[in-house]
């Protein structure tokens, strides 16, 4: 099966925003068209295209080295475009770079800080770089929401990793961007803080900010994102609404505890990739989407296998991800 089949080109013209209201895709927050990039003769982004609607939370996922950060760097202007076109809110990010950069806020994967300044000073400066006059009320709100108040006068060198991350998010929002780009914002951040950050991201999304994020935590992507694109080896191998992607590609696992241990796998179940565990007392069967558990059970009963207990397990994005990127690896 070719991985290309997983890329859905068509999208519904209407989406729901955070309040459940429908809105049109008349002007996308971000449009990427046939984007390429090579480093030292090696192509790391191979002609990807996608759009992000205004108000969406869009996840860009992929294993390390898939080309996610390179793509983000080209969007925000840290990397030069190899070939292709990027536009934000209708403006070309090369020709009208001042306009697009005003509308984008980015939190890079690497923690970057300027040790010369305190949090407060750095935020004021950052607002100025964006050509926006300092708004003390807005700055205070961001500082308060990200829990930075106690550290305002500290030089950044002395802050912990989690605080630096929160500071970078506050700084990325100081000029009120319409599209916030988060490249692995929760890498190396503890669980409690991660939840806090995602709550905050949801909140600003509800208030109208479009979000593009990359994360290694697939469970979070599944919970957060309206749509997900998966990149592997510089190509886009999936692009769908999250629920749809998980539903279509995930499978359930049926775990049957047997009254009598089996010495070998029963015949006729190959389709379900059977496995025996627990010294033959646990039979594992994969239940692909679209197959009814009842039909499978009936078939097993016909084999005269006595079942003492049944468990099912639903796979999530994690499995879909492994399935997709693994496939890509094999076909490459």
């Amino acid at each position: 099966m070719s991985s290309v089949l997983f890329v859905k080109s068509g999208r519904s013209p209407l989406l729901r925003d955070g309040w459940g209201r429908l809105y049109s895709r008349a002007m996308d927050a971000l449009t990427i068209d046939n984007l390429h990039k090579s480093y030292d003769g090696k192509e790391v982004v191979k002609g990807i295209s996608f759009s992000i609607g205004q108000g969406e939370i869009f996840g860009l996922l992929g294993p390390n080295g898939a080309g996610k950060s390179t793509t983000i760097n080209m969007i925000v202007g840290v990397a030069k475009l190899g070939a292709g076109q990027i536009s934000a809110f209708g403006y070309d990010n090369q020709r009208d770079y001042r306009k697009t950069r005003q509308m984008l806020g980015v939190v890079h994967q690497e923690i970057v800080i300027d040790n010369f300044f305190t949090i407060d000073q750095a935020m004021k400066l950052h607002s100025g770089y964006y050509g926006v006059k300092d708004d003390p009320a807005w700055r205070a709100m961001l500082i308060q929401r990200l829990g930075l108040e106690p550290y305002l006068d500290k030089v950044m060198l002395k802050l912990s990793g989690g605080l630096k991350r929160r500071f970078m998010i506050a700084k990325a929002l100081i000029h009120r961007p319409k599209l916030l780009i988060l490249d692995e914002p929760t890498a190396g951040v503890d669980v409690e803080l991660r939840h806090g950050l995602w709550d905050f991201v949801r909140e600003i999304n509800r208030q109208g900010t479009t979000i593009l994020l990359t994360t290694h935590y697939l469970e979070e992507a599944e919970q957060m994102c309206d749509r997900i694109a998966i990149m592997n080896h510089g190509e886009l191998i999936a692009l769908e609404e999250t629920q749809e992607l998980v539903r279509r590609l995930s499978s359930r696992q049926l775990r049957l505890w047997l009254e009598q241990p089996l010495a070998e796998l029963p015949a006729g179940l190959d389709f379900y990739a059977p496995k025996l565990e627990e010294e033959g007392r646990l039979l594992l069967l994969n239940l692909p989407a679209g197959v009814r558990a009842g039909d499978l059970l009936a078939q097993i009963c016909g084999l005269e296998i006595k079942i003492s207990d049944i468990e099912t397990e639903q796979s999530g994005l994690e499995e879909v991800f492994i399935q997709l990127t693994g496939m890509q690896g094999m076909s490459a």
Partner: protein
Amino acid sequence: MMGSGLDRFYPWLPFWTLLRKEIRRFWRVATQTILTPIVTASLYLFVFGATLGTRLSVIEGFSYAQFVIPGLIIMGVINNSFANTSSSLFMSRYLGGIVELLVTPVTPTQFIMAYTLAAMIRGLLVGTIVWLISTLFAGLPWASPLFAILMAMTASFLFAQFGLIAAIYANNFDTLSMFSNFVILPLIYLGGVFYPVSILPAPWRALSYFNPLFYLIDGFRHAIIGVGDTSYLVAFGVSATLAATLFVWAAWMIGKGYRLRS
């Protein structure tokens, strides 16, 4: 409230902000950036002005202190203008902070202007303080004060550009210090800070005319004491041409994002 995008955009605010940041950067560590060069220059002044200087005379009608002070002033201007752009931009590349600037609407022109202006302010500030301290050792005639200021500004502009170029090419601290230790320092010392080029034997004198710093130093001294090895026109012409060349070079690299954007 969020993402309104309705905030007014002030196109020159990025420039003023970057300039302010660059000035604050050196001002915060003034002990290193202002005080150290002043102490160094004061030591030179003491050695050449108060001790050795009384026994030396290189130009008729002037004490050695009067001869050497303009050279020390311009040396302070050159070293500090170079140090400011080169260390600021290099550190920013080295530590990754440059990325925070590259994603903002700061234009390449604003970028160069802010870095250059901050470097000029530091260089000229050090030069001015060195001059003020030098008044304790010797008075200067100030033959053409306006031309002296023009030459000092050209020197600081030129070395601000050179600092940007060095910071872009340097891959590590060693390369960066090579620029100041193996390029600027010999050129300054051989450019006539401590002696008039005219007293050198013929081949060395001829060679000195290929040292661009000779024109900066000689032109500045000429404007202050009224005596020089070259005319104002030649001194300014050569310095300004070199400054313009380095500016075009730096502007081309920054405009292209050469070694700044991957």
